[in-house]
Structure formats: C-alpha cells, structure tokens
C-alpha cells in the first residue's frame, strides 16, 4: 500500500490519456456535416440517335461535286450506324469553314453536333480535306483534322472523317474505313457464277478477286493482314486457299484428304481453324500456317463445324450435332472442356465471336424461318435481331456494333447483303452489283 499511491496517479493519468486519445479518434471518424450542394442521381435518359448537322462541305478549289459527294458519304456512314440522325442537309445554312459557327442558330435547329468541312486541291494536284466537329450546345470544338490524299481516295478520306466523328461522339472506334469480302453471284440460277469480290463496307469500290471458273465459298479475312482464306472447288475436293486482297495473288494452304470446311483465322493470324471430314465424322482442327502442323481439337463421331476463336484466342465456339440437334458449344482453344451454350428450340449454326468478346452471333433455324441473333458466351442473354425466310452468315464490324449478313427472299432470285445494329432496329441493305452472299468484314484498315 505504501507504493500504491504514486502508481495510482500514473494509472489515472495513463487511463485519462488513453481515453482522451480514443475519444479524439472517435471524433475524427464521426460523420462530417454535409455540404450545401443539391445532389441528384440521373438514371434515365433518352436512348436515341444524336442529332447532327452536316452541311455541305465548302469547295475551296471549285470541286463542288467532290465536296458534295464526300458530305454524302459521311452522312450515309453516320446514319447507317444507327447512332446519328443527320438533319435535312437541304435546309441547312452553309457556314464558313474557318469561322466559329453561330451556335445559337444551330441550337435552334435542334442539332447537338455540327460538322463543318472544306475540300480543295493542292498545287501538286493532291486532295486536301479538312473538318471541324463542334459541340453546338457547349459551344466548343470537339475535333478538327486535315487530310491530304490522291484525288482518287476521296471516299477513303470521307470514311476516315466519319470514323473520327463517330469515335469522338460515342467513345468507340469507328468502322467506316473498312472493307468487306463476299461472294458475288451472277447469271441465271441454274448456271450461277460465283466470284470472290471485295468492296468498301458501304458497298462502293467493288473489285473482283477470282474469275468465276470455280466455286468459291466462305471467305474469311485475316485479323492482322490483307489476306483472305476461302474454300474453292477445284478438282475433286474443296481446298483452302489464301489470297492477298491488295495484289490478288493466291496460294494453296494445303491439300487435306477428304472434305475440308469453313476455315477461319486465329486472332493472331498465325493459324486457321477448320473442319475435316474423315471416316464419316467431321472434327475441328487447327492448322499452323508457319509450321504446317495440323492438330485435332475435337474427337467425336458427330459433325463439328463453323469454329470461331474468341478475340483473346483462348476459346473457340463451334456448332455440333453431338447432342441430337445442331447447337452451339464453347471449348478451350486446345479442344478441352466443351460446354453447350444454346438450349433453345430449333437449331443453331454459323457462330461468330464478336471482336469485343462480349457476344456471339449465330444463325438460328426454327419453324421454317432463319434468324440472326446474338448470345453471350456463357449462354445467357440470347436475342434475335432479325428473322425471315432465309437469313444467314453473320459477320461482325471491327468494333462489334454492327452485323452484316445475307438474306434470300422468295421471288427476288438471289441473296443480298444487309447490315443490322445490336438493337435490331437499324437495318440497311448494302448495294452490290449483283446478288451477294457470305460476307466477311475486314479488320480496321490503316
């Protein structure tokens, strides 16, 4: 007890300090008073295309026709994406391309964005095109570029400008400066000539890549180069060829015994995945274009075809009738762990993995009609985008927002190409010289 008092004081002091420190810490973590700011959550909006004004580009050197044509190509690209509504060009004033526009006037026309451009010629004959994209509401410039090119490339320049506008207003890469390879069909039905052809994504600048002396099927663009892989019936068996779109040169990939079907490139462009028929069963193989090694990925007595890689190259989606009817399956790229992802009524085929990786497009046959639809890779969220007498062969735009396919309608005599967006509401025919089928979209063109 003798020593109890002084320690007791220390204890008191200690306890007091501990309590004080704890209380201080509690005070520091206590809720703070709110600022006098009115805070609201906005969770609903208008899901609709952006109203955009694209008055005719000014013709600096008197090339009024090129200026008008370029304006039309840009407007056409944007409206077909489904994300923009260009205002009626005939009722728009023509602003000077060098001055800041009168925003109040454009706001009065209900435009949210304004494209002002000009086209002229350089002394050396090159085309000079420039544009500015204005935010009419905020009154500021969003983008502005100038391009020089040969006069014959005016369409390409127009597509590049449309891509720049699309990217700045949606946050996504544009897809207008791209090409589509397809099978051009001409002649009477019993003597149909099928030629491989390539065109701009809007149907312009068609070039033929083969002569039409042999049947061509399922062309597919390489994701990394200007090569197209396709099947051609020359001789007894169909063979897989590679064709350089820019030079027109082609080479035989390999001669595989038996029937070979539907080659498609891997995302790195080094391999193709295809189906080979051997002993009554059709299985999926991958073929290394450099080492010429063939590797079997599936091993069933069923028919496995239509393989398509995921954009990361880790998985493959394909169609198979191993379960009785044609359904879609996803497996690892080495062929392991196949999982069925479609369970709906009808049969599913021609799966194509989106370049974004989030969806798989397919053709579905049910009750005498063919539909184009999309489904998530885990098998959920199936949506039909269009349905009719015969729709088939979906292919994705490089940004994964638009699907092109071919449609055969009774009485029309042959198939035509169409595009549709992921809402299913914006559907447009792609103008081709004749009938067309089996479209395949190119990667972005540099």
């Amino acid at each position, binding site marked *: 007890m003798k020593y109890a008092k002084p320690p007791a004081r220390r204890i008191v002091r200690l306890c007091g300090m501990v309590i004080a420190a704890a209380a201080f810490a509690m005070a520091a973590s206590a809720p*703070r008073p*709110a600022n006098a700011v009115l805070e609201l959550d906005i969770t609903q909006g208008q899901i609709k295309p952006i109203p955009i004004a694209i008055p005719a580009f000014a013709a600096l050197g008197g090339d009024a026709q090129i200026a008008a044509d370029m304006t039309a190509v840009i407007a056409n690209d944007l409206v077909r994406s489904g994300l923009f509504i260009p205002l009626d060009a005939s009722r728009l004033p023509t602003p000077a391309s060098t001055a800041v526009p009168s925003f109040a006037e454009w706001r009065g026309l209900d435009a949210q964005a304004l494209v002002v451009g000009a086209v002229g010629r350089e002394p050396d004959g090159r085309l000079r095109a420039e544009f500015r994209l204005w935010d009419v509401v905020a009154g500021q410039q*969003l983008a502005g570029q100038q391009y020089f090119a040969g006069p014959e490339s005016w369409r390409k320049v127009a597509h590049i400008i449309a891509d720049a506008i699309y990217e700045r207003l949606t*946050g996504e890469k544009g897809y207008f400066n791209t090409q589509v390879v397809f099978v051009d069909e001409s002649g009477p039905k019993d003597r149909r000539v099928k030629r491989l052809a390539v065109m701009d994504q809007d149907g312009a600048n068609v070039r033929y890549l083969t002569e039409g002396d042999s049947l061509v099927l399922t062309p597919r663009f390489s994701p990394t180069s200007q090569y197209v892989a396709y099947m051609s019936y020359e001789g007894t068996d169909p063979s897989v060829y590679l064709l350089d779109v820019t030079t027109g040169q082609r080479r035989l990939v390999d001669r595989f015994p038996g029937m070979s079907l539907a080659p498609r490139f891997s995302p790195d462009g080094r391999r193709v995945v295809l189906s080979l028929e051997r002993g009554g069963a059709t299985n999926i193989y991958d073929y290394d274009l450099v080492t010429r090694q063939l590797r079997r990925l599936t091993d069933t007595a069923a028919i496995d075809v239509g393989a398509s890689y995921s954009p990361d190259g880790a998985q493959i989606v394909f169609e198979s009738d191993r379960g009785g009817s044609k359904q879609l399956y996803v497996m690892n790229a080495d062929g392991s762990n196949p999982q069925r992802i479609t369970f709906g009524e009808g049969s599913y085929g021609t799966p194509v993995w989106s370049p974004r990786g989030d969806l798989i497009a397919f053709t579905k046959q049910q009750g005498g009609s063919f539909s184009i639809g999309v489904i998530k890779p885990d098998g959920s969220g199936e949506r039909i985008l269009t349905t009719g007498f015969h729709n088939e062969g979906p292919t994705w735009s490089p940004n994964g927002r638009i699907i092109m396919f071919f449609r055969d309608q009774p009485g029309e005599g042959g198939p035509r190409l169409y595009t549709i967006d992921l809402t299913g509401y914006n559907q447009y025919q792609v103008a081709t010289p004749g009938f067309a089928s089996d479209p395949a979209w190119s990667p972005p063109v540099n």
Partner: protein
Amino acid sequence: MRTGLIVSAAVHLVLIGWGLITLAVAPLDASHIETLPVEFVEVAEVTDLDLGKESGEEAETPSPNDPADTVAEEPPPVPDTPGVDEPTPPPPPPPPSEAASAADAADAEAETPPALSEPEPLPEDAAEEPPPEPTPPQVASAPPSPRLRPDRPAPETLPAPESPEASDAFTEQIAALIDRTNTGTAQLASEAPATLGVATGSPDAKMTQSEIDALRSQIERCWVIPTGWTHPREVSVTIRFGLNIDGTVAGKPEVVEFPASQYGQVSADNAIRAVLQCGPYALPAEKYDQWAVVQLRFTPPG
C-alpha cells in the same frame, strides 16, 4: 498486480469500445432517398394570440444570454432558478443551424474534391454559396455548451489522492482533455441529420420531393444516351454546376468524376450537354440557397 489489472481493464475497455464504434458503423447500402425536412410546430405558437401583443406585460426576466452577465465578476444567481450554483455559462454557441452552415462553409473550402481543383472555379455567385455569415473562427472558439458540463468527471470518482493539490491538477488536466474532445463529438453529433436519407444530400433542404423530381425529369429529357452504352460502370459520370437565381446555368459545369474508360470524355461531354441544353430550370427562388450548386451523377440504366 492491481496496477496491471487496472491498466489491462482500461485498455481492454477502450479497445472494445473502439471496436464497437469503428467496426459496427459499416454503412448500410440502402437505396438513396432524399432527405425530407420534417418540422414539428406546436399549435400554441400559431394560436397563442397574446404572442407579440402590444398590450402584453413586459417580461422582466433577464436574458441568460446577456453578454453583460459574462463580464460580471461575481454573477448574481438568477433569483427564481433554484439549484444554480455555478457561474452563469458564457454565451451559448450560435444556433445549430448557423453553426452547421458555418461548418459547411468551412468544409466546403477545406474539402474541395481533388477533381475540382484543376478546372476553373465555379462562378462567383455559385462559389460563395452558402453565405459564410458566421465565420469559422467563431465556431472554433465557441465555448463548450453548458449542457456538456454534467459529463465532466466528478473529483470524487477518482482514487483519493495523498496531496489534494497535485491530484486536482491531474484531474483538471484529464477533464480538460476529455472536455475538449467531448465538445467536438457532441457538436458533430448534433449536426448529423437525424432522419433517414442521404447524409451527403440536402439535410437542411426545404425543397419538396416534387420540386426535386421536376428538376430531375427536366434533365433526363435532355440526356441523350447513345445506344450500345450497356455498361453503366464504364460511362457513369458526376458533374457539378452553379445555377443563377433565374435558373440559368452559371458558367460551365465541372466534371467531378468520370470513368477511366474509353467512354470517359464522351460521357462527361454528354452530361454537360444535357445540363446546358435543358436550362433554364424552374426552381423556387425563395429556396435559392438550396439549389445554387447542383451535383448530378449520370448513370445510364444497365
């Protein structure tokens, strides 16, 4: 032995108390509800006709808040109030509402989000809201509230000291520490909104739900969401702007937060466009201090 026990018990108590407070206050993730002010008014205040009557008798009760009292050396006890044996407390702090708004003003200055520091400041009329009428120093030097006095630990609860003077000194030190911290806690707690709703919303809001809804729907009419924006996480954006008293947007809205995705810039532009396009906003002018600065978080439906 006993010392150790006491120290151990005290530290354990503090630790448990600390844990209870800090671990148990995980915020409930309830859906956001705007704070609705509810005011209780006694019917007598409205119906008492004597109130403010010219013929009424003049009350002679001296005001306890009279500054003169605090100057007095020996404040005389209030005659009719039994049991008051302490000196008259110094003038009470400003009324809670003033204190809160003053603290708001101080906080608004001190806690500006980092995202706001870089863009140009809001226009003057917006930035000056709320009016910093009571200056922050007043709040800092505000004397402790009289009702906190009972919290002061009584000397008799402490172990009897050998030297009364020394013990008193310790007690005073500890009491002073506890007093200061308690003052802060009590003041903050009293300012916290006592109703359900968003703590960061508008605790003092006098705006009605329909006025808030009208503002919201007006902006929603102008917010164009491009089709294909299927990932709300990637495009959610928060902007802040000042409003003039006529409902027009003051200056250019500022982006408080936008996603680090490819859609970030586009989302911010889109939200600002919606705000600018839909003005002016029809809001009650008498409640201007409630909507002078608006912060909106745009999140498209998933």
